[in-house]
């Protein structure tokens, strides 16, 4: 076990949580991320291999999927983001690459992103102040890439009252500020 201590995207030892009115904003740091892009004409093969390895049916445009420790959302044509628990799958990219071989390009994305899970009844009121995504019509399982606070983000609707936001890690502070300000507006 190496001796380096990690810090969170917001620069602390422990993930941050804010409760504003009925809204809870939680910094999520326990997920490993890897992007999987099918090589030319290998889309079907990659879907099969991913299904064999993880049980995940790689989702279609605008969707996400979840099985066991794994979840996935659509990023672009023949490209997905896979997530799994960091504790048990810190080397997720290597793990996937070993199953997919030269059928796919796999890239570690774990620390490319910060993630905030936003929960509460006023979820849609909050997000319609941050992004142009049609959050009210996004059902659980929907995922979209959009902008919030001038940042490129992914939104993944986890449940009726929960949305995960993935933003660029270096701008975690700005994204967090936007989420908190919007939460205060609607609280």
């Amino acid at each position, binding site marked *: 076990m190496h001796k380096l201590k990690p810090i969170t995207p917001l620069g602390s030892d422990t993930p941050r949580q804010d409760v504003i009115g009925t809204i809870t904003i939680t910094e999520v740091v326990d997920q490993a991320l890897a992007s999987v892009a099918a090589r030319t004409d290998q889309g079907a093969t990659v879907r099969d291999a991913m299904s064999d390895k993880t049980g995940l049916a790689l989702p279609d445009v*605008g969707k996400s999927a979840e099985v066991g420790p794994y979840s996935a959302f659509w990023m*672009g*044509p023949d490209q997905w983001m896979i997530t799994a628990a960091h504790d048990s799958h810190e080397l997720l990219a290597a793990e996937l690459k070993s199953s997919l071989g030269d059928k796919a390009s796999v890239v570690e994305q774990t620390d490319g992103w910060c993630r905030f899970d936003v929960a509460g009844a006023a979820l849609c009121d909050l997000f319609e102040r941050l992004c142009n995504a049609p959050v009210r019509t996004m059902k659980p399982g929907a995922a*979209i*890439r959009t902008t919030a606070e001038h940042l490129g983000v992914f939104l993944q609707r986890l449940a009726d009252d929960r949305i995960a936001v993935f933003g660029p890690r270096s701008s975690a502070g700005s994204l967090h500020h936007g989420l908190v300000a919007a939460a205060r507006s609607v609280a």
Partner: protein
Amino acid sequence: MIINHPLLGPRDAQEFTYLGDATLINRPDWQSENALNAFHDYLYLRDNPAGEHRELWYHEQGDRSWLVVTRNTMTHEILNVELAHDVAKAAAAERSAQ
């Protein structure tokens, strides 16, 4: 404006970066005899029509697809949207068939 992305559906033009004339897909052969002239024309001689225009837009805040958008520059009406990747593949196939 709203661009009807072939994969993602209607998306705000704010999410896109504009490049220009879609003829930029048809890059000349660098080894052809008149390559210098061909590249000059390719890069500098573009139509700027008042009316229907095929343009390249990049979905930078989305799925990173380049799109070929056929747009009326007078009314902003968008008549067709294609994935540039598909357009380029078709053009390449046509070139190699010749």
